[in-house]
């Protein structure tokens, strides 16, 4: 019994490993597009700053620029996970690729986790592109006061976004115009999920304090800038974040199980 459990666990890890490697090979299969993304990031940043100028903002201090950097990274993460990861699975479903994946993977969750791990590694490029852009345009060198906490915040943010994107995908996979919902979500969710620094106002502070999905991004800024943004000890912020992730994980497992069962029993794949 024990041996069979171990074998099963080993098989699951092997599947996740294979899916991760497959995802990484897919994501890095077009180096030209990666180079273009890195090279065009400063242009987007310059456009953003020029547009602020259009609104009448004339000067930006170093502290504000540091906050902008982390807000931009949070937005890039939300956008990348919803579009790249979430829509990747939606496309797989529409194009029938998911059927083939299901034929070789024992549980669709293995595929999602594997692909998610690959995507989490890939999104580090977004951070690299942003750091480079801020350096090129403003000569800004990032501050990192607590590196282990900063790394932990990226792990927490990635796990949370993996689970949120998966739940989102499971819910919308049969909807039409899912890209429209994604477009709206990519603006609404970050606002609720810790994108805006608490310094922006008392309502934002309240939002960041009480929104359970905001903590990884708040911790990210706190670790980088070295001060508490919300009046909660950092340990508790991490604990709240872990609890949120655990709850999202349970919800994801239930939804994926229902989705998997529906697909296997009823055979409703693609656009049916």
């Amino acid at each position, binding site marked *: 019994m024990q041996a069979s459990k171990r074998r099963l666990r080993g098989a699951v890890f092997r599947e996740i490993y294979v899916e991760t490697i497959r995802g990484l090979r897919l994501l890095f299969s077009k180096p030209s597009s990666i180079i273009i993304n890195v090279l065009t990031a400063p242009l987007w940043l310059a456009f953003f700053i020029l547009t602020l100028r259009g609104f009448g903002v004339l000067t930006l201090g170093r502290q504000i620029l540091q906050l902008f950097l982390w807000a931009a990274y949070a937005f890039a993460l939300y956008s990348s996970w919803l579009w790249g990861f979430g829509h990747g699975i939606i496309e797989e479903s529409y194009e029938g690729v998911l059927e083939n994946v299901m034929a070789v993977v024992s549980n669709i969750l293995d595929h999602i986790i594997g692909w998610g791990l690959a995507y989490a590694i890939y999104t580090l490029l977004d951070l690299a592109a942003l750091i480079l852009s801020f350096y090129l345009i403003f000569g800004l060198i990032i501050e990192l006061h607590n590196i282990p906490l900063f790394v932990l915040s990226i792990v927490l943010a990635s796990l949370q976004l993996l689970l949120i994107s998966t739940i989102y995908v499971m819910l919308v996979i049969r909807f039409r115009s899912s*890209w429209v919902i994604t477009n709206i979500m990519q603006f609404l969710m970050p606002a609720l999920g810790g994108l805006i620094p608490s310094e922006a106002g008392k309502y934002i502070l309240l939002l960041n304090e009480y929104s359970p999905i905001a903590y990884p991004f708040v911790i990210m800024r706190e670790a980088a800038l070295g001060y508490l943004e919300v009046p909660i000890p950092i340990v508790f912020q991490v604990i709240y974040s872990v609890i949120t992730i655990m709850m999202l994980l349970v919800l994801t497992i239930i939804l994926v199980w229902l989705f998997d069962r529906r697909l296997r029993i009823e055979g409703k794949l693609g656009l049916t």
Partner: protein
Amino acid sequence: MINELKIISREPGGLVLLIILPYFIAGGMAFIASFFTKITSNVFIRQFVGFEVLMLSMIMVQTGARFLNEERNGGRLEFLLASPTSMYVILLGTSMVMIIVDIGAFTIASLPLLYLNYGLIGMIRLTIALLLLFIGLLPLYGLGLLMSGIVIKLKDADTIMNIVTPILTILSGATYPIYVLPWWIKDLIYVLPMYITFSSMYMEIMGNTGLSLILNLILSAIIYLLLGVTAYASFEKEIKRGGV
């Protein structure tokens, strides 16, 4: 055109998005800027029109290229090239639908904002601004033709669009004061059609239209249409000789 309209109407959410997205983007930027400075209604309207022009410009430039890319991926491009209908007619049909949809979206999105700020006179100015938008989208169709030619020649729409979109966005000059830029970028902005379209529309909405701006816009439409048609013809000739 009817086919394209049917395709677009299958996704009503996309049309709704076209209307609300400028509010999201201009509103979001105004929200960020409001922490540093006071945002007046005139500033917001200028930025809103700027984002609208920018968004519609990008759609216009990309429509033809995306269409041809999809046709090629679906294996239908060879048949389209072999059909007696000219590709210009097909691309014009596709782009005309986008022009109609874009103008419709702009009208619906701008109506409440302009009515609240300028009342009935704002509606009259909006009508003229829409006409200017129509003229402004024509040179962008010309640019779109050029892009279509490049895409079918280089066979990689995504990479080309990923390079062209941020460059055109920053060279639009529609959402920021261009005097802060070096002279050579400013000259590039003046040459491209987005800034002239934005300026003439915004000036019209403010009630200060200059005839020279409108003449520039018409001239730009003629030049870019000629450029697009000539460039596309040369690319198509090459493709017909070498194969898709």
